[in-house]
């Protein structure tokens, strides 16, 4: 035999006798009856000696066949299959392996009826990577990684299934179909200050459905110029938002019911006042009693005026409208309202003051609305201060900025309110003024404040006076103004 022939024979011998054992993974051959026909050394090292046993006994230490047998599928489909599995080693420990199944025909040209199994252990890093990938793909949120140009570097499956192909496109294009970034972009904020930012956004899915989601943006990595990658995680809240709206609608219906009942009560009292007036005029005339006639006439006039003012208040309350914002100087509004009431207050023995606070910056407000609020609060303050024991009633109005909010404050040193009155003060038709009030003033005030996306609160103690505070977050006022601009632009387009 030549030298070359000797080498070839040695190689053939290695291939047929030793290669199987030299493979850096466990290898086994499974026969048509699912029994293990052959295993390599590595396999035996890990799983023990199992030649002749059923494969699930050999690989999973169980007498129960697998629910879905990969070896069967491999033979049925006559193609290679790869799957990640948890097998059990000879010591009974779970091990994560990647298993490769290949159909084998022992006779040349025959039908494959054996399966070659190659099982390689997954390293920890690889396992984590796989788990991370699985989490990234299957987590029920939209996840994207953005670069400084707001382009999506990586997006998860849910995002792409909902909004369409995302890699490389800008986030505003993918989420909203916009061509320019959003004005309140939380990602831009994170790139700027390196902090986490959240906001609620509306997007459009690739099917054209409007969707609402809460997005949280966190910095992911830093480069020489600061944050260079951010991660955006968004949760779909469309359904939640719909439910919230449903609850609000229901509450509104209940409020309408209460309002109608309250209205009926107010009207009945007014009718009774008018009835009393008519009775006194009528009986005064019959008796020639001028004093009674005069009293009756006053009653009629008073109740007529009350009816007029109630209808006016009611209409202004019922008028659900979007505030018409114009840039205003808050200090000027206070001066104007004080000017309007200074004489009336003087007649009731009450002094009006413009509080000495650093004047706030101008803000975009609905002039008519804010004036109505301040007038309501001032008029209440004057009433409360006018009945102060020992006189000396003062109402102070101020406007100032605090913690990103524009604050209007109306403070009186009047009679104050107890807990029960305080609790009911913003509810429908509640009044402590007997026949004088319609109970709509503070309700209307609260509604206007809410239309400005602000809040109203009151600090009060019996005998210690009351302080009503309107708080308008500046960032909400800016948003409202932007929405107004968008509406105006849309209206222009339609025109």
């Amino acid at each position, binding site marked *: 035999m030549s030298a070359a022939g000797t080498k070839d024979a040695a190689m053939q011998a290695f291939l047929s006798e030793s290669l199987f054992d030299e493979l850096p993974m466990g290898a086994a051959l499974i026969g048509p009856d699912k029994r293990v026909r052959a295993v390599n050394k590595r396999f035996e090292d890990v799983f023990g000696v199992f030649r002749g046993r059923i494969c699930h006994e050999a690989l999973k230490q169980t007498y129960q066949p697998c629910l879905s047998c990969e070896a069967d599928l491999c033979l049925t489909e006559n193609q290679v299959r790869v799957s990640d599995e948890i097998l059990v080693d000879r010591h009974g420990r779970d091990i994560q392996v990647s298993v490769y199944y290949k159909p084998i025909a022992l006779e040349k040209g025959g039908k494959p009826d054996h399966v070659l199994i190659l099982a390689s252990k997954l390293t920890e890093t690889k396992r984590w990577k796989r788990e991370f990938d699985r989490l990234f793909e299957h987590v029920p949120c939209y996840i994207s990684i953005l670069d400084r140009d707001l382009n999506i570097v990586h997006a998860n499956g849910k995002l792409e299934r909902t909004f369409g192909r995302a890699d490389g496109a800008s986030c505003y294009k993918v989420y909203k179909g916009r061509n320019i970034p959003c004005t309140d972009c939380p990602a831009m904020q994170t790139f700027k200050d390196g902090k986490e930012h959240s906001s609620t956004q509306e997007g459009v899915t690739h099917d054209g459905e409007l969707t609402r989601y809460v997005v949280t943006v966190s910095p992911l990595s830093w480069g020489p110029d600061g944050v260079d990658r951010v991660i955006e995680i968004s949760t779909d809240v469309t359904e939640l938002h719909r439910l919230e709206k449903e609850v609000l609608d229901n509450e509104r219906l209940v409020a309408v019911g209460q309002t109608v*009942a309250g209205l*009926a*009560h*107010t*009207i*009945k*009292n007014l*009718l*009774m*006042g*008018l*009835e*009393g*007036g008519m*009775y*006194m005029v009528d*009986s005064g005339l019959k008796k020639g009693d001028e004093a*009674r006639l005069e*009293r009756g006439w006053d*009653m009629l006039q*008073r*109740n007529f005026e009350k009816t007029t003012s109630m209808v006016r208040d009611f209409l202004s309350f019922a008028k659900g409208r979007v505030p018409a914002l114009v840039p205003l100087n808050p200090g000027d509004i206070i001066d104007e309202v004080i000017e309007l009431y200074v004489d009336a207050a003087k007649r009731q023995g009450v002094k009006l003051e413009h509080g000495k606070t650093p004047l706030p910056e101008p803000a975009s407000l609905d002039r008519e609305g804010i004036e109505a609020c301040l007038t309501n609060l001032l008029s209440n303050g004057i009433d409360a201060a006018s009945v102060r024991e020992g006189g000396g009633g003062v109402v102070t109005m101020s406007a100032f900025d605090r913690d990103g909010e524009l604050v209007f404050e109306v403070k009186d040193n009047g009679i104050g309110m107890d807990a029960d*009155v305080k609790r009911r003060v913003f509810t429908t038709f*509640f*009044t*402590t003024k*007997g*026949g004088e009030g319609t109970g709509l003033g503070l309700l209307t005030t609260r509604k206007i404040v809410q239309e400005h996306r602000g809040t109203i609160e009151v600090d009060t103690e019996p005998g210690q006076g009351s302080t009503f505070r309107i708080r308008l977050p500046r960032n909400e006022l800016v948003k409202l103004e932007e929405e107004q601009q968008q509406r105006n632009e849309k209206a222009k387009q339609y025109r």
Partner: protein
Amino acid sequence: MSDQKLVLIVEDEPDVSSFLTILLEDNGFKTETAANGRIGMTQAKALHPSLITLDISMPEESGLRMYHDLKMDADLKDIPVAVVTGITPEFKRFIEQHRKLPPPEAYFEKPIDKTEFIDVAKSLTGE
């Protein structure tokens, strides 16, 4: 006349109170007024009127509370009460929920029928 019957009018609305006062006085009654349930109870104890007209919805102590206190008071429970109110369901619900409380002797919805009101006031006071 010294045998004029006294009616206590418990009502927060000044015009309604004046109207009932004049109407009752024109028909031979004496009257006293109270602007809320708390004052009303004090007056009822002090004056022991022949009839009480009671509004239900008042800002300070409500008419419901006063009605409850009157009917639970051994000395006052026999004074007839004419409820004069603008809110129907609330009072009816209140009476249904408080089984121990008797229904009021008379019940008027605002605005009242003057003749009927006086007729009932007379019959309740034995005039």
